[in-house]
């Protein structure tokens, strides 16, 4: 009897302790600290548009659709369902009825119309994605919870770009409109319905967001981050020490060397992936020796691709063409190192005895410097001398507009704001963007232009895929770029974020999707 009473008492005490600790776990603060190279200059969804701002916008605002997972898929978020008209020009989206802004007012069709019109009116940031696709007046409210987009022409990846249309609370923006459509106000204030609220904003120093426990969609796991602080940390050695010491849970813009060194140390995960980042060297297709297609073929055959991959410590993979592996269509013949073919192509060019080229890269980017060295070494074999020059990014971009000042060879990393071939191919190879930083070599081919335009205006997935296959084949034949590698992720994750690999999504603005994070320890 006494034994039974004693065991009963022990059980009661144990249960009490467990329940108290369970309550403690639920109420516990689970802050996440990120050391980030970059500053958030604004979180106005009509102005800001980069990786860090995109990631932050997703915490403060909601969009109709959202990218989830890897490979990324478009999931309805504020949207409940949607239909597309037969001509591919009208998208009708039914909204979820339970979504509310942070002030408690409902997210309705009027708010979507207001947000779309404001984005086009302000005309910065993600507005560029909608240029030529959606015009002012093209968005209308069918009823309180249904919105209709009438496009200028059919646009295949329309749902993809809708992930960048963040819905603002019209009442809040109107109340703080000022003379600039609320741009000044929304620089550091939220008018959204997202899972986090801004709790402290020190420009250039740190930005703090506190979870909204009553977020209308709920939380994907009970150990969600209760507070997220982004600390601007410009020095990479400080970011590295931060993650090593546990001061930071998450760091960005780290080199592969750091990722390799830290991977597995104290539960740190370096370079998750695979990514959607492609790395290539753009050749000037209009001016100078590289305007000669045979010389470009010679360079493509002479390049030592294995040595290039070694730059990323075995964490990059060879790029078969202009698209990352998860978006590539049919396998195409790719350029491999073959010095005989390289000499043959060189002999057919206007420079049979070789020539001199300038490789320009961005100051401070070690991967790009090493790329130049490999290129210098590779091309020496066929009599091409490469000089390597480092310049600041802004200075490099200034030389692109005119083909006569654009460099012969220029390396470029390209991520993507939406996971569709259109984003890569249009930006890099459509002649309308020649001279832009995405196409510094001024590449243009009317046949490629036509294929890209046709693919963009096609909604049927199979037809689009076929058109992109044709476009890629034509691009490879012209060899405007050296397609080198899909490179590893530059984020390094500490052990307190327990599910990063599972929730990682490689689209720009999704790599720091704190909403999905589970925090332990």
């Amino acid at each position, binding site marked *: 009897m006494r034994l039974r009473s004693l065991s009963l008492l022990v059980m009661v005490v144990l249960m009490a302790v467990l329940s108290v600790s369970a309550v403690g776990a639920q109420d516990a603060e689970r802050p996440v600290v990120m*050391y980030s190279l970059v*500053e958030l*200059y*604004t979180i106005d969804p009509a*102005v800001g*548009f980069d990786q860090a701002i995109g990631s932050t916008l997703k915490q403060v605002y909601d969009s109709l659709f959202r990218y989830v997972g890897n490979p990324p898929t478009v999931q309805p978020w504020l949207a409940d369902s949607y239909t597309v008209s037969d001509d591919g020009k009208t998208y009708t989206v039914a909204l979820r009825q339970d979504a509310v802004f942070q002030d408690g007012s409902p997210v309705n069709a009027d708010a979507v119309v207001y947000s779309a019109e404001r984005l086009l009116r302000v*005309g*910065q*940031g993600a*507005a*560029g*994605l909608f*240029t*030529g696709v959606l015009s002012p007046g093209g968005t209308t409210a069918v009823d309180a919870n249904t919105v209709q987009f009438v496009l200028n022409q059919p646009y295949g990846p329309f749902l993809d770009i809708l992930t960048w249309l963040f819905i603002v609370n019209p009442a809040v923006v109107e109340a703080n409109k000022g003379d600039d459509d609320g*741009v*000044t106000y929304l*620089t550091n204030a939220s008018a959204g319905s997202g899972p986090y609220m801004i709790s402290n904003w*020190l*420009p*250039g*120093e*740190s930005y*703090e967001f506190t979870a909204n426990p009553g977020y209308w969609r709920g939380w994907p796991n009970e150990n969600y981050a209760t507070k997220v*602080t982004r*600390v*601007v*940390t*410009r*020095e990479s*050695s*400080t970011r590295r*020490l*931060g993650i*090593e*010491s546990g*001061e930071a849970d998450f760091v960005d813009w780290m080199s592969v060397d750091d990722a390799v060194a830290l991977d597995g140390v104290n539960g740190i995960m370096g370079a998750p992936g695979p990514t959607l980042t492609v790395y290539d060297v753009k050749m000037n297709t209009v001016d100078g020796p590289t305007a000669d297609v045979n010389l470009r073929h010679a360079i493509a055959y002479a390049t030592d691709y294995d040595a290039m991959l070694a730059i990323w410590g075995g964490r990059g993979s060879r790029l078969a063409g202009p698209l990352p592996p998860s978006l590539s269509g049919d396998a195409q013949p790719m350029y491999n190192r073959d010095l005989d073919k390289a000499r043959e192509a060189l002999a057919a060019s206007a420079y049979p005895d070789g020539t001199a080229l300038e490789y320009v890269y961005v100051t401070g980017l070690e991967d790009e410097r090493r790329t130049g060295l490999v290129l210098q070494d590779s091309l020496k074999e066929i009599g091409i001398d490469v000089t390597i020059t480092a310049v*600041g*990014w*802004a*200075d490099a*971009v*200034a*030389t692109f507009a005119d083909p006569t000042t654009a460099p012969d060879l220029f390396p470029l990393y390209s991520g993507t704001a939406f996971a569709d071939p259109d984003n890569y191919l249009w*930006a890099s190879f459509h002649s309308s*963007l020649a001279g*832009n*930083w*995405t196409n510094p070599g001024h590449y243009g081919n009317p046949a490629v232009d036509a294929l890209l335009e046709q693919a963009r205006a096609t909604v049927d997935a199979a037809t689009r895929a076929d058109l992109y296959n044709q476009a890629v084949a034509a691009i490879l034949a012209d060899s405007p770029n050296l397609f080198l590698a899909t490179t590893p992720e530059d984020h390094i994750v500490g052990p307190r974020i327990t599910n990063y690999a599972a929730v990682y999504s490689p689209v720009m603005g999704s790599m720091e999707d704190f909403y999905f994070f589970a925090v332990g320890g």
Partner: protein
Amino acid sequence: MVRFVLQRLALTLVVLIGLSMLTFFVARIIPADPILLAAGPRASEAQIQLLRERYGYDRPLVEQYVRYMGDLLRGDLGTSVVLKRDVGPDLARYFPATLELVLAALLIGVLLGVPLGLVAAVYRDRLPDQISRVFSLGMVSIPNFWLAIVLQLILAFTLTILPFTGRFDRLLHPPPTLTGMYTVDALLTLNFEAFGTALRYMIAPAFCLSLGALATIARTVRADLLDVLGTDYIRTARAVGIPTSVLILKYALKNASLNTLTQVGLFFGYTLTGSVLVENIFSWPGIGNYAVSAALTKDFVPLMGVTLLTGFAIVLVNIVTDFFYLVLDPRIKYTS
């Protein structure tokens, strides 16, 4: 005296106007377009034009300059194209942070450098002098950014006795803004706990920045003190039996301090403009980081603001230094 100050202030105006013209026009000769960079890769021609008009970059260069100076006189320092916010409030936040660091560095430089130089002079060519020489040489040879990383590694990472980065504990509220310098504000509001916190964050970066001043001041004090100690009046004072400590601290040091004062004035400008690397490593939200970010993105307006403000500060410190000459050496007279 009043006339001297007024004259110097008038000259300051001329210097600042010259500086503004130089910075304005040289920055714009560079063939980079901040509007294109700010607009992003997908902006249409119409969107770019809209931005150009909004920031006045579509106007002739001279008109832009006149407009900028007009705004400046009204206290408006313009708006950054890249950061899309006004420059004035940014400078008001970042400048005191750097100024605090620079003043702390100079204070460390003087507090350690003067005794070091003094000991070296008194023990000329003996062991303390040799140690002081090696120490000074070492300090002046060590790049401050390298020492910053090493200090961070040892004090914050390994020993965890100092914080890693930043200016203040992120979980606490900094003292209310009076001067923008946290340690000064904490003292003014008698908040000694905040003073202690701010000091802990400041000590490592300030020490790194003080190296050059420390070493140079130590060597200058030594050399000048040796000169003074060899003069007749000191020999006489020694002969009449004035104790060495009084002799050095009261009579010799004051006469040996003119060059040190010049060094402090020079190092103020040098440290103010050269703090960026240390600021970077300690994520100190100062004006150095702000200026470098602006330079890299060709963001002219913040650059103008930083240049004019630091230019003004340096000129002001020069005037103050000149003024102190008068105090230290009554023989000096400024005539017009």
